[in-house]
């Protein structure tokens, strides 16, 4: 059965290869091939999942060893895949959502002449992401880790003729590379600590290592996670990443890739459990990002950027949960999955809106779209309800669980984290309502464009609506399904372990509080955007708003410190290399030249001066000889 695992990866990889190498002759059918292979991978995933269900909880780990990759003395990395409850969950999410988005893209990219390549990249992404979650050791995980980075680079910059897109792509890759430093150092540390970096041995023998080393490893992993999952301080790339085609934002920058960080942390649970300080760091990062993203989300008028902010903040929830340790891991993953559904749905909705509005993204130019694109409205609406945690929808269960877990952490830490999550819930409700209202309610605010014809919004083709509907269903039902009899918890427990924290306050109280926050958030938003008409041009807004519009000045900071500083550094180094390092050499050469020029003047052509030098030479010779004897 485990021999199927490789096929999971192989299918999309094949697709990528064929589509990218195949050339123009594939332009007509290429996209369908890509979709097909993605679907195939999903089916295999289902089969494997079924086979896992067939086993009992302890034996639900399949390992497929393909070949020895890098053997150097004690350093040994294999190309081996590991399928267990955790990874299969991801596999299903990735391939499932992935397939849907392939389908969606068929419609969305219909008019792009480079559609074949787009699907090639999408397949490449699937393959890489699957490697990431299936890898049996950290080095192979690294391959997937960078592979998704590459795919996202290619996809963000898919419209390369737009400089902004190219820049955004580069930025994403670079910021991720910073994170990768963390990952590689973590792996090195593992190697020097355990002599290996395969999941099995590392995680089992994690206990033997000193806490110091574990903390170091954990912090490095956290750094990596920050990069990939756009957590503060490495979050800055996510907003720009929205330059990519919307399906990309939906798949990579909402549902799957950005959650890889969470996967990494949860996968390394054993290490984090041994490093409480690192866990605190994780929770702090999560909490900060949670608020950060939410606040940014409130201020953006670009629908995709608003959603991006929301993504950031939601992942903040997950990271925070993952930082809580055994009480949180499961819920982190659970929220990850549900978020996968509703956030992908929301993005696809946004994409559909843009599709209908000539790629307009400014929500101030929307308004009252619900009657023009009903399907989009409904699916988007369901996603909206799910994310704000409307009772009995997916978000409600997963987020609520996290909030409870945060409180259950206990102590002041518990209180702080708990209240942060609550606050986050409120803000989430606010900005999502804002998006909802600005886009679908109120009166129309769009103008005929420059050459005078009206965008006349319209519903998207079925290839696009079907995925939206499916995802909407998911975002409605998934939470309840998982929650029923703590299915999800029991499913993951063997991998991540699970423990009920002792909550200082009752579960019902927390749930109530959450709902109150929700109502408050929605209320404020309605007060601001529902009752009053939305101005077509953004008001100057408060200081906070303006800061939030610029991602809380984080980019400005990067620009001043890193970019400018870097440019100065390189420029001065170029100067140094030319004048100093090279100058020394050329200087020596010139020195000899000068010496030569001076010495040759002695050769003045006069016999008598030659004779003088000979005479002097003779005298010297004699003197020297006598001197030698004297001393």
């Amino acid at each position, binding site marked *: 059965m485990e021999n199927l695992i490789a096929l999971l990866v192989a299918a999309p990889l094949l697709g990528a290869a064929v589509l990218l190498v195949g050339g123009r002759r594939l332009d007509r059918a290429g996209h369908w091939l890509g979709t097909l292979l993605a679907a195939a991978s999903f089916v295999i995933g289902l089969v494997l999942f079924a086979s896992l269900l067939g086993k009992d909880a302890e034996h639900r780990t399949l390992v497929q060893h393909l070949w020895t990759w890098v*053997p150097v003395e004690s350093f040994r990395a294999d190309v081996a895949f590991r399928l267990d409850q955790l990874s299969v969950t991801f596999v299903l999410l990735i391939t499932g959502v992935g397939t849907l988005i392939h389908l969606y893209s068929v419609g969305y990219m219909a008019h792009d002449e480079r559609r074949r390549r787009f699907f090639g990249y999408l397949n490449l992404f699937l393959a890489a992401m699957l490697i990431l979650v299936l890898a049996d050791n950290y080095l192979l995980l690294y391959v997937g880790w960078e592979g998704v980075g590459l795919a996202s680079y290619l996809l963000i910059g898919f419209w390369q*003729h737009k400089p902004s897109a190219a820049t955004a792509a580069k930025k994403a890759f670079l910021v991720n590379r910073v994170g990768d430093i963390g990952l590689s150092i973590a792996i090195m540390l593992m190697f020097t600590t355990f002599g290996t970096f395969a999941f099995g041995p590392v995680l089992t023998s994690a206990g033997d290592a000193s806490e110091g080393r574990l903390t170091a490893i954990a912090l490095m992993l956290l750094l990596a996670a920050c990069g990939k999952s756009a957590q503060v301080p490495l979050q800055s790339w996510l907003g720009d990443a929205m330059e990519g085609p919307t399906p990309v934002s939906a798949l990579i920058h909402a549902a799957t890739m950005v959650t890889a960080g969470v996967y990494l942390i949860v996968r390394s649970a054993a290490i984090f459990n041994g490093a409480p300080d690192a866990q605190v760091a994780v929770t702090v990062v999560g909490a900060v990002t949670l608020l950060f993203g939410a606040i940014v989300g409130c201020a953006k008028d670009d629908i995709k950027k608003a959603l991006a902010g929301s993504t950031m903040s939601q992942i903040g929830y997950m990271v925070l949960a993952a930082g809580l340790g055994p009480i949180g891991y499961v819920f982190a993953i659970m929220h990850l999955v549900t978020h996968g559904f509703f956030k992908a749905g929301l993005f696809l909705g946004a994409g559909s809106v843009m599709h209908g509005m000539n790629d307009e993204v400014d929500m101030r130019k929307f308004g009252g779209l619900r009657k023009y694109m009903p399907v989009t409205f409904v699916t988007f609406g369901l996603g909206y309800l799910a994310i704000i945690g409307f009772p009995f929808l997916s978000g409600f269960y997963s987020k609520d669980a996290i909030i409870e877990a945060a409180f259950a952490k206990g102590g002041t830490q518990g209180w702080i984290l708990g209240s942060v999550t609550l606050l986050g819930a409120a803000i989430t409700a606010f900005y999502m309502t804002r998006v909802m209202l600005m886009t679908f309610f109120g009166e129309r605010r769009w103008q005929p464009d420059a050459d005078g014809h009206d965008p006349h919004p319209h519903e998207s083709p079925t290839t696009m609506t079907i995925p939206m509907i499916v995802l909407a269903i998911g975002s409605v039902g998934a939470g309840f399904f998982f929650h029923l009899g703590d299915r999800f918890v029991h499913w993951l427990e063997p991998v991540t372990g699970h423990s009920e924290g002792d909550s200082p306050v009752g579960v019902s109280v927390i749930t109530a509080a959450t709902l109150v926050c929700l109502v408050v958030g929605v209320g404020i938003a309605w007060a601001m955007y529902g009752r009053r008409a939305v101005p077509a041009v953004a008001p100057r807004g408060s200081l906070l708003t303006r800061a939030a519009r610029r991602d809380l000045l984080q980019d400005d900071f990067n620009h001043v410190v890193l970019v400018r500083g870097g440019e100065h550094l390189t420029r001065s180094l*170029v100067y140094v290399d030319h004048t100093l390092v090279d100058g020394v050499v050329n200087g020596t050469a010139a020195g000899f030249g000068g010496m030569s020029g001076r010495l040759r003047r002695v050769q003045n052509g006069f016999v008598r001066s030659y004779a003088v030098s000979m005479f002097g030479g003779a005298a010297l010779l004699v003197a020297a000889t006598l001197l030698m004897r004297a001393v």
Partner: protein
Amino acid sequence: MSFPLLTATAALPALGAVATAAVPASRRSAAKWLALLVSLATLALAVVVLVRFDPDGARYQLTESHAWIKNFGVRYELGVDGIGVALLALTALLIPFVVLAGWNDADPLETGSRRWRPTQGFFALILAVEAMVIISFEATDVFLFYIFFEAMLIPMYFLIGGFGDRAHEHGEEAAATQRSYAAVKFLLYNLVGGLIMLAAVIGLYAVAGNFSLTEIAAARANGSLHMATSTERWLFLGFFFAFAVKAPLWPLHTWLPNAMQESTAPVAVLITAVVDKVGTFAMLRFCLQLFPEASRWATPVILVLALISIVYGALLAVGQRDIKRLVAYASISHFGFIILGIFAMTSQGQSGATLYMVNHGLSTAALMLVAGFLITRRGSRLIADYGGVQKVAPVLAGTFLIGGLATLSLPGLAPFVSEFLVLVGTFARYPVIGIIATFGIVLAALYTLVLYQRTMTGPVKPAVASMPDLKARELLVVGPLIVLLILLGVYPKPVTDIVNPAVKQTMSDVHRTDPKPAVEASK
């Protein structure tokens, strides 16, 4: 006596060079085809060597030994260990691509004197370089090695100075002067290095009385040949200096950017991908084996220099306006990694370094050759003159990107494996240096992606609007390289299997063993 396989690998291109040079002026294409065939035949021989080589066999295999200059105790001794074989294969592999890529680079613009035959000369010189490089990978006699280590400068020098890059911002005249400046700089740098090494070689002779690497190393090992500490250190420095110039190691690197910038892309590849490898290879083979104690003594300084090379080269690459200079500085950074790996004195480090030599050869070749195709199309080396190429020449852009990704050692491509091995190997013994070196990967991403963004993406510049995509010949050059990069990225085991035993030997030469993992150590 069995067939002298190793001699053949070197003799074939040497004869080929003579033959090519002899082709009459009117038959240019004949010279090209001849050169290509010879290089392919050499590749075939190299494959035979690869097959005949038994990784777990004796340290030096396929050995040949003949008396040469008794009075100097010099013997014509050849033999390859795993490291040598790997680099031999790399060289033999790359030359056909170099020839193919340089197919039209040396055709005379103006028909000069009847006897002026640049094309023949170009390919003859390339083959000559191949012969010399190969034999210096095979030589197990210090003197023999030295001779070819030095002699290869001459053909290289003519390749750089005689067949420079025609694309030049200030016209042909300026190009000529800058080119000869670059050539002279290259020659003098390496000649000075070589002469200082000569002093050391003579010193070694004065101490040891012969030049046989194996004998001396053995005598050092069993203590029958004792060197005063200071002597050994001086000799080591003499050798290392030459290799550090060749490699090149900061601050002896400034000849490389000029040389690569002024020479045609294939020659630039010849320099970094092939010739410079002799330097790093020689560090492994001669410095460590002949002067183990001195090597250990010098390690800290060398590591720091290597570290500087890594960061410094990368930063300078970021600051370049000229595509080829950029690649050159990138190479400097990479050589920093290689030297780091060698002197980290761990098996991961040294295997990684050897692997790195091979992979860097492939990746630079890929990147540089595509860059060359690009430059010959547009007639400029300045990054600023390009933009939006991917729209008009997607295949070119794609291959360029892959070359770039290899340069930034993306996992899945060959360079990643070697780079990571080097980093791990270094980290295991010198954590701080390892960590700092790791920052190199960000800088690598920076200069590669900036290069790609500026040249390939964005709106199409009018100057490149009519640029044709890669031709069949060019694809034939780049395709196999990319395939190899991917293959060695996912399955480097064949190479590591060849290299590891040799590295094990070297490690024992310098009496170092890998540090134990903390967990085991604590138990």
